[in-house]
């Protein structure tokens, strides 16, 4: 059987009914990962993966029916799993072994998951192509000449290449949705606070979320119900009940109010995604949705707003990597100042350094009000605009990317071009709302891209319902 062709829900069924053992399934995916080493999607297969699978089989035999009992799952390299390496794809944390479990890993283990290994990413989640990894770039799962997107490029590629049924990522400015778009898979960034960030190495704390990749929207909905929930270890996690998202997928979109932003409609003109975007809106209308033409005047400023807030927080969050407590210490450092400066200069890659410098610039005295505070105020203005939009819309439709995946190396010399990759994804992070990318069309080279469904905070159910309809019906 080709297990990579099965959905997560089908796999769970097979495992629960004991038609398939976790050991068999896990070994199957390990073999596939080893067969597709050239993708460089997976940095490490944990040496106890088969042990974990055996343990899962034992539990299943004894009647355990955890929602992920025996399911092998890959996690992004910035999510902590106690006793396992977590390097954030940085040389600086090459040998860092997690001293505790992240909340998401705990939740998956509680449901019986097999944590199979860790996936490649842009160093400290800073990047849009997984080219900023200290362990080499990851390839696009469909076209090896192209990037998989980033920063969660390894996880997106792994799901598309059938190296696992589900993989976790993190999304700070589009780091799940953009690679989902480029690899033709489903990726969600949940509402800010929906999933606990405890045990996830922080890049930009106020806007990032853990999310996940699956092949289908339904799998995605199933999985998010497991990862969600407030945590006593994360003040910013939302202490509200977690719905069964799968049950919120109704199979029709009748009467759903779909927002179309004027600024987005203007921005897509001439892009690869233009036709698909307008076709999709037409399709939704024909199938019973009500299209609401609305606007967000400051939409265009989401990108610069992000590139102030995120580096500011990053500059502070990454201070703890100092060569003293856990990160690698420069061998030539002979005093404390040198430990700091040399270890960090040797340990961090170029993009990370650039963002730390930028962050310290916008926070430093004399610039704080003009940049950081200004961006925070702008964020608030955008939230007010969104509030208005969501008064008349259930969801908003946006492209995920401007087109299909770009070629490896084509944007590495131009940071601004790389930053503009996040044009359509950053809005959801700035607003803190849920956003999902669903495969929707093909570009001029025949490669996939996705469209985004956004909804107001905690309305993931609405997002899944619309996205599921698109995935099953659009283009058929």
């Amino acid at each position: 059987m080709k297990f990579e062709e099965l959905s997560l829900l089908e796999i769970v069924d097979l495992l629960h009914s004991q038609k398939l053992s976790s050991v068999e399934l896990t070994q199957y995916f390990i073999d596939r990962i080893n067969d597709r080493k050239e993708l460089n999607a997976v940095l490490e297969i944990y040496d106890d993966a088969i042990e974990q699978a055996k343990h899962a089989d034992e539990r299943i035999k004894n009647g355990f029916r955890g929602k992920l009992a025996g399911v092998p799952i890959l996690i992004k390299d910035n999510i902590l799993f106690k006793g396992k390496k977590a390097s954030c794809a940085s040389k600086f944390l090459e040998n860092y072994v997690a001293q505790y479990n992240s909340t998401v890993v705990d939740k998956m283990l509680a449901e019986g998951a097999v944590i199979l290994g860790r996936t490649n990413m842009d160093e400290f989640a800073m990047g849009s192509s997984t080219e900023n990894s200290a362990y080499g770039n990851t390839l696009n799962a469909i076209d090896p000449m192209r990037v998989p997107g980033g920063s969660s490029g390894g996880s997106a590629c792994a799901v598309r290449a059938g190296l696992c049924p589900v993989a976790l990522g993190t999304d700070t400015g589009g780091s799940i949705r953009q690679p989902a778009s480029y690899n033709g898979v489903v990726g969600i960034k949940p509402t800010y606070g929906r999933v606990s960030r405890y045990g996830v190495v922080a890049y930009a704390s106020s806007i990032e979320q853990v999310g996940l990749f699956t092949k289908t929207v339904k799998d995605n909905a199933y999985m998010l119900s497991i990862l969600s929930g407030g945590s006593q270890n994360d003040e910013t996690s939302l202490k509200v009940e977690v719905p069964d998202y799968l049950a919120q997928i109704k199979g029709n979109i009748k009467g759903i109010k779909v927002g179309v932003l004027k600024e987005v409609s203007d921005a897509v003109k001439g892009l690869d995604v233009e036709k698909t975007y307008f076709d999709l809106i037409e399709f939704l209308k024909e199938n019973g949705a009500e299209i609401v033409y609305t606007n967000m005047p400051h939409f265009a400023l989401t990108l610069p707003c992000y590139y102030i807030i995120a580096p500011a927080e990053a500059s502070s969050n990454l201070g703890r990597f100092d060569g003293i407590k856990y990160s690698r210490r420069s061998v030539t450092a002979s005093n404390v100042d040198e430990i700091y400066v040399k270890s960090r200069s040797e340990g961090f890659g170029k993009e990370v350094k650039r963002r730390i410098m930028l962050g310290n610039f916008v926070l430093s005295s004399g610039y704080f009000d003009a940049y950081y505070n200004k961006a925070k105020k702008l964020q608030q203005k955008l939230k007010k605009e969104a509030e208005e939009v969501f008064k008349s819309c259930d969801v908003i439709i946006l492209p995920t990317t401007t087109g299909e995946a770009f070629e490896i190396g084509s944007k590495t010399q131009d940071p601004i071009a790389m930053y503009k990759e996040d044009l359509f994804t950053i809005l959801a992070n700035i607003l803190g709302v849920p956003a999902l990318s669903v495969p929707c069309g093909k570009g001029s080279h025949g490669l996939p891209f996705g469209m985004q469904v956004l909804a107001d905070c905690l309305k993931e159910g609405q997002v899944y319902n619309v996205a599921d309809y698109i995935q099953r019906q659009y283009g058929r």
Partner: protein
Amino acid sequence: MSKTKISIEEVRRLASLSALDFTEEELNSFIPEFEKILEFVDQVKNCDTDDVEIEYTSHKLATLREDEAKESSPQEEILMNSPKTKKGSFCVPKMLD
């Protein structure tokens, strides 16, 4: 709007705040790149935010964590990733007091 310019002294000051060191060559390529990024983020200045008050997400005092001491991590676990430890402590070359 005039472009935000950045001097080599300014970059050195930022590097010092960042605990980063750049070679002369790195610095020279850094400045034009950094100025381009600043030009990009300078767009936020086009937005009038005079009417916006910063709002904070908050929670009520009564809902905060109760003051109860719990078990800490074992010392060896705290120190396990450190490049240098001595006498149950993280260790750096002797600092001038």
